[in-house]
């Protein structure tokens, strides 16, 4: 194995808590009702095409993309559209949701998935535009958390030549193990997916970045990529936020994405491992993105799992099969503890970016009061973007944002390392988020 790489500035080592790492991917049952959010991406809102009381088939479009930076949403099951309602998602935003009554309530979702037919695919037969439009049609978005439409990320302008593709298998967030399991169990599919993406950029080198706390994943991916010379696996030091796009690029290539810039400015495109598997599914099974592996963990969960539920499954459907005591839930996180958001409804649906659902009781939460800053500088030391966090939050609190500090504030990747280490319990990243909102409103 080659030397472990990592990013230069800052970073922290929160407890890993990856208790579900040894649980193979399983499949859940189909709930009595699916509530499918019509907007699960960053970009233009979709146009709902599903009609009330109409029957839908698995894979049928429910909401249509309305532009380039937009993304289709499909039905994961056969069923009947009941209504379209507004409902809070796990992230807290309110979205229109298509409510579907599935035809096969209670059936294991695996049977539905297994019914899809595997096709022979000759990648050479596709043009670059055909590949992109197929990914676009399948409604694939970045599954690492941001939900940015994948076909957009794969279409850099001609003046930005891409010479390196990076597959993000860092999974630096505590608790989450869904990407880990994919790398173990779907390594061959992943490599086929990578080959499709590689075709878009004329077989440029591909590096799969994996944190070294997953040696089995490093091994399985190394084996799966062995036949391909220009697909390599890079083991990375365990350090949060290794999976941050800019940090991962620095770790692997040593290039720094410029301030306000994008990965393509340094000739790199990054895709998450789950996204790559979704691309594979779209080509080999003609299967749009309607399900994903979600890690169910937290101190209230009896049976930790990495499980596939149809998109739109409400959280409440998980209580019985996973032994979660509904009465005790105080903290429900969509995503990991470092960047995940607290949900405020137990009926919120699982979506394309729900990498984990974490259930905690009272003991996991401690209300903390902000104390005065003692200028210890810890926040600045751990900031992976090298930002003067302490001063920035002071500026934001005084509502005195200058032009130069504006750039700093917008460069924040909101990893939360600063808040994590602050001895005075200051809500630093929250203040920076508030600063970002102030700046956006001024525009």
């Amino acid at each position, binding site marked *: 194995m080659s030397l472990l790489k990592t990013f230069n500035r800052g970073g922290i080592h929160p407890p890993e808590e990856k208790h579900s790492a040894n649980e193979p991917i399983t499949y859940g049952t189909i709930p009595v009702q699916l509530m499918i959010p019509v907007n699960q991406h960053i970009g233009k809102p979709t146009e709902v095409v599903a009609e009330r009381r109409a029957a839908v088939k698995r894979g049928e479009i429910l909401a249509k993309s309305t532009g380039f930076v937009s993304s289709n949403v499909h039905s994961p099951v056969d069923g009947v559209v009941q209504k379209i309602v507004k409902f809070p998602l796990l992230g807290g935003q309110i979205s229109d949701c298509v409510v579907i009554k599935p035809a096969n309530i209670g059936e294991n979702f695996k049977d539905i998935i297994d019914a899809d037919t595997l096709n022979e695919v000759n990648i050479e037969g596709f043009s670059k535009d055909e590949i992109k439009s197929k990914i676009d049609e399948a409604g694939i978005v970045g599954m690492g958390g941001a939900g940015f439409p994948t076909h957009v990320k794969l279409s850099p302008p001609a003046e930005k030549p891409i010479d390196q593709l990076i597959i993000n298998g860092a999974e630096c967030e505590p608790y989450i193990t869904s990407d880990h399991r994919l790398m173990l169990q779907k390594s061959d599919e992943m490599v086929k997916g990578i080959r499709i993406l590689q075709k878009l950029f004329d077989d440029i080198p591909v590096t799969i970045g994996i944190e070294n706390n997953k040696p089995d994943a490093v091994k399985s991916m190394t084996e799966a990529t062995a036949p391909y010379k220009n697909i390599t696996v890079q083991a990375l030091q365990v350090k949060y936020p290794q999976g941050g796009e800019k940090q991962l690029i620095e770790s692997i290539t040593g290039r720094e994405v410029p301030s306000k810039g994008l990965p393509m400015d340094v000739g790199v495109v990054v895709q998450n491992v789950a996204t790559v598997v979704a691309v594979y599914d779209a080509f080999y099974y003609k299967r749009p993105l309607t399900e994903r592996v979600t890690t169910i963990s937290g101190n209230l969960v009896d049976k930790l799992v990495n499980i596939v539920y149809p998109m739109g499954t409400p959280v409440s459907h998980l209580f019985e099969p996973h032994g979660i005591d509904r009465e005790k839930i105080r903290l429900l996180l969509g995503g990991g503890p470092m960047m995940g958001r607290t949900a405020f409804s137990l009926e919120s649906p699982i979506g394309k970016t729900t990498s984990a659902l974490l259930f905690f009781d009272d003991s996991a939460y401690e209300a903390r009061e902000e104390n005065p800053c003692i*200028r210890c500088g810890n926040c600045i030391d751990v900031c992976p973007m090298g930002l003067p966090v302490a001063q920035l939050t002071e500026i934001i609190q005084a509502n005195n944002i200058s032009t130069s500090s504006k750039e700093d504030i917008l460069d924040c990747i909101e990893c939360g390392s600063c808040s994590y280490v602050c001895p005075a319990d200051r809500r630093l990243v929250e203040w920076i988020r508030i600063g970002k909102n102030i700046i956006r409103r001024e525009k």
Partner: protein
Amino acid sequence: MENKHLLILDSSPHGRLTDSTKKIMYTVTLSLIPALAVAYWFFGWSVIRTVVLTSIFTVGIEWLIAKVFDDKIDAFDGSALLTGVLLAMNLPSNSPWWMLFIGALVAVVLGKQVFGGLGQNIFNPALVARVFLLISFPVAMTSWPKPGALSDAVTGATPLGMLKTEGIGAIAKMDVMNLAMGNMGGSLGEISALALLLGGIYLFIKKYITWEIPVLFIGTVFVMTGIFWLADPAKFANPAFHLFTGGLILGALYMATDMVTSPLSFKGKLIFGFGCGFFTVIIRLFGSYPEGVSFAILLMNAVVPLLDRYFPDKKFGVVKNG
């Protein structure tokens, strides 16, 4: 509670490191124990008396301020205690109680609370108080008990004081090793360089202080006094003497590295450390006071906001293009 079953809404991250302001303050206070033990060895019970009295005064005054003005102030967060102990370490062990009280009052009120309390002060509170006392009560503040003297009656000048008033001949017979151990007259906490270093190393391992300020501070003093000594050894004391006398080690490890009043950026810390050392040497060699550490640190405290502003750390993704 009626909201027992409601979900908690909060923003990420949902988890914190267990470090706290209290823990930092009490750890720093604890790291002073070796130096205090050496002080006790040389000066006896008066050391304990002075430390306990100033601590009670500083914490008490802060508690009163919290009671009267702002109940958000936590007098027991350790910062007032640390100020008290550090102030005591900067004073002769035979200081009268009323002087300690005035010192505590100046430190907590003028040094800290008038600026807005913890984290807001520009100057190191303990040093503000020390300089205040030094200017107000010059005689009491320069009658240092001699080490080993069991009664407070035997007092004298510090080695630096002797150097200033009597010239280079007065210190010719002093053994550097003896000075490093702390066997000399001086403030109760500043005498033993080695014990202070021990505490400093502990803080460094705990990452509560960084190397930049102490290394630049002490290094600058060593190099500058070394240059003068080489130029004219008949007039100037050797650098080792300067290293182990006065408040240099205490100042460099504990006063200049005070989180609140030192710069945040790397370059800022380097300049801050250098400035402290530079002004210390200028005052020691050419000023009217024998010792310049306190003045130098206070001077540099004043420019900390400028250092932070004009020498920020390089941030991610900013490439210098010529």
